[in-house]
């Protein structure tokens, strides 16, 4: 009898294990389809549901929260999709959430995506109809993708040609390789240095001359009777002053520029960089030199005029004698 009991127990164990597995299997499938547990219904209206079927998943932020329970026609252009959503989502989904139909993977099942639009709105309620976004049609997507691909191909082709041309152009490479340009630059800067030193000397001379005139103003003014002449003389002196300050300014600018060029070259900027700077440098240096030249010419003229003036003749002679 006890062996019979034992056998019956084993049979019971066998049967209950099998039944439990079956129930578990059915339960899990049911759970995935949201048949058990409490749900609420949300609706959305589409023009095209693209093969969405009963039982397809509904996702919120990419997480399965329910399934499609029913799809029905409202009229000839609108299809209404009923979704069973887990009750806990009532506290999360808002009335202004956006519903769209997507695909699980490129060729997978259709899914309904609910997404938040990040704006304040009350929470959803049972049987709410949510706003929909026109679903992304895989066909459209592929078509666009195809066009984009073609464009990219064309661009790549062009780019290829450009690079080939650059590669084939020996002139550019020669230019880049050539060490003639930096050398030239060097000699130019050296010349500039010499020029500015000379200018300094000239300006020193001019200063001495003008100082002397200023110091001797008392004597000169007493010598001056003719107001017209005296006015002329005043103008002349003013001009000389101007010319001096202009020359000063120029010298300063030249100095800065030279420093800059010096720094550039010392820091080892490449030939292209130097080249870029080149035109402006040359230009401005040219201008400065012209200005300096003009200023010095005019100064010379004024000085000559002073020398020839009978009032200053004696003074100049005295200077010459002192020398």
């Amino acid at each position, binding site marked *: 009898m006890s062996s019979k009991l034992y*056998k*019956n127990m*084993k*049979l019971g164990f*066998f*049967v209950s*294990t*099998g*039944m439990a*597995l*079956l129930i578990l*299997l*059915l339960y*899990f*499938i*049911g*759970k*995935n*389809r949201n048949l058990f547990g409490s749900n609420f219904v949300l609706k959305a209206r589409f023009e095209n549901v693209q093969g969405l079927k009963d*039982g397809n998943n509904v996702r919120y932020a990419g997480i399965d929260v329910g399934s499609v329970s029913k799809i029905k026609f409202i009229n000839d252009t609108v299809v209404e999709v009923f979704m069973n959503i887990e009750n806990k989502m009532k506290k999360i989904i808002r009335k202004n959430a956006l519903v769209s139909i997507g695909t699980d993977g490129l060729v997978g099942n259709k899914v309904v995506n609910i997404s938040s639009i990040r704006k304040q709105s009350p929470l959803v309620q049972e049987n709410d109809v949510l706003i929909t976004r026109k679903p992304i049609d895989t066909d459209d997507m592929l078509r666009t993708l195809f066009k984009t691909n073609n464009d990219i191909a064309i661009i790549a082709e062009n780019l290829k040609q450009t690079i080939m041309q650059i590669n084939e152009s020996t002139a550019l490479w020669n230019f880049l390789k050539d060490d003639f340009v930096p050398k030239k630059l060097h000699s130019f800067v050296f010349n500039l240095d010499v020029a500015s030193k000379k200018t300094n000397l000239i300006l020193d001379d001019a200063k001495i001359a003008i100082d002397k005139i200023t110091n001797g103003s008392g004597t000169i003014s007493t010598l001056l009777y003719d107001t017209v002449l005296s006015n002329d003389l005043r103008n002349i002196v003013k001009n000389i002053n101007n010319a001096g300050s202009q020359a000063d300014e120029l010298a300063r600018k030249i100095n800065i520029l030279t420093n800059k060029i010096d720094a550039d070259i010392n820091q080892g900027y490449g030939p292209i960089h130097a080249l870029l700077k080149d035109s402006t440098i040359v230009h401005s240096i040219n201008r400065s030199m012209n200005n300096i030249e003009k200023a010095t010419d005019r100064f010379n003229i004024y000085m000559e005029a002073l020398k020839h003036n009978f009032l200053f003749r004696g003074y100049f002679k005295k200077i010459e004698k002192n020398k």
Partner: protein
Amino acid sequence: MQNSIRSKTFFNEVGNTSKFIGNFFARFLQPPYEIQEIFKQCYIIGYKSLPLVGLTGFIMGLVLTMQLRPFMIDYGVESQLPAIVGIAIIREIGPVITALIFAGKIGSSIGAELGSMKVTEQIDAMEVSGTNPFKYLVISRVLATTLMLPILIILSDAISLYGSYLGVNIKGSISFNFFWTQIFESLEFRDVIPAYIKTYFFGFAVGIIGCYKGYNSNKGTEGVGSSANAAVVVSSVMIFILDLLAVQISDLLGFN
């Protein structure tokens, strides 16, 4: 001439089997019920078949997975391996292979047992002892096969899915949880329910054909052997025919 005799025997056999099945349904609800014998047969037919069915199920799941894997990788859908194997096992391979193994083990044993009981007059002895041998032998066995095969198939499915899990993990790596999630995600009621219902018919076919062949065994040891053999062959073929019917019916009902 030969053909006409053959077809006569065939239709005779079909007719007799149908009568036998009719007898089964006419009597199985009539008292007395051989409850003890039904339990005993359930134990022998169900519980005792579990090791064999479990082993074949395990190997089936493992091999199927290992065979499918390279092709899944070639097509870049390796991640779908659990889903594919799960659907294949639950819908088709589990029920049919298990039923075939079951037909081989139980169909032949019923055929041989009843055949030898017939030959050695044990069936007559039962009838004389005031026991309806049809109820005692046939109904108990057919009920046992009908009720036990679905359970065996469920267990076999579970074991072969476990085998498949190991198969996936031989070369790849997948967590136990994720494997089952994948399978349950891909399964639907329409995969499970028809597959489960058809197993009852498989079990019934194995039981009733084994009993019919044994019950109508010819005299002699050769008769016993041939009835055991015929029980296996006919019930295996029946399983495939029923499977075909099942897929057509579930298709008509929109389950596919």
